[in-house]
């Protein structure tokens, strides 16, 4: 009986260590502020085609590719989620969907909810929700 209890305790400690290792950082404003490269697959900082996010201390953010801003707005951490309220134009994403050509020079408001997980010191993953759209992203901190 004693041996089983020791084994159980060991496994609990191991599991706790594993879980805490996977969540080495908390999603707080101080953590999020900075430059990130975000993609549906892991991207490298410096790739011109990658999508970059700049979270500023004053609560604004900018996202874009190839040094061109494609979304500007506000970010806010709400519990475990990150809310993004921003303005963007579908015309920026003609390379993804050719039909979006008709949105050129037309700007719309969007609200995205990010649900982060596996938050590590310089990397986190998140599920993004925009209306009916769901996207999984991996963010890597850039210097």
């Amino acid at each position, binding site marked *: 009986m004693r041996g*089983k209890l020791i*084994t*159980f305790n060991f*496994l609990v400690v191991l*599991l706790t260590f594993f879980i805490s290792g996977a969540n080495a950082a908390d999603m707080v404003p101080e953590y999020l502020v900075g430059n990130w490269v*975000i*993609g*549906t*697959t892991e*991207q490298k900082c410096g*790739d011109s*085609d*990658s*999508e970059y*996010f700049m979270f500023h201390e004053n609560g604004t953010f900018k*996202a874009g*590719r190839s040094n061109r801003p*494609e*979304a500007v707005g506000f970010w806010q951490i709400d519990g475990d989620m990150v809310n*993004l309220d921003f303005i*963007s134009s*579908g015309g*920026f*994403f003609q*390379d*993804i*969907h050719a*039909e*979006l050509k*008709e*949105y050129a020079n037309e700007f*719309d408001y*969007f609200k*995205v909810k990010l649900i982060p997980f596996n938050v590590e010191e310089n990397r986190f993953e998140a*599920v*993004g929700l*925009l*209306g*009916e*759209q*769901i*996207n*999984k*992203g991996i963010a890597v901190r850039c210097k």
Partner: protein
Amino acid sequence: METIRKTFKLGLVPILLAFLITTIVPGFKTEARAGSGAAFLGGMVAGHLVGGAVRRSRIRTAAAVKSASEPKTQTVYVQQPAAATTYAQPAPAPASKMTPEQKLQQLDKLAAGGYITPAQYKEKRKAILDNM
């Protein structure tokens, strides 16, 4: 030992489910996501707007169909205000249709307004009276 197994099972189930949803289930991958691995936010925006673009296109098509099916008299209807404007400010009758009296009155107005000289007034007045 049984407790440990149960604990493991309970812990593994959500992890496996999350893995299945995000990795294996193809339906989870949106069209936009499949389009570009680099565009996380852009993929969502694009996917969201493409749905809107389809709806907008349908509305435009419906409007075009409705417009085409309506009788052409509606076009005449749209042009009516211009006609109404014409009615509100009737153009003066052509000189040839005016009576000598109207011509003389018009001549008086032109003279009173200083548009014609006294000599021109006299000449025109004589011409009107001679044609009676």
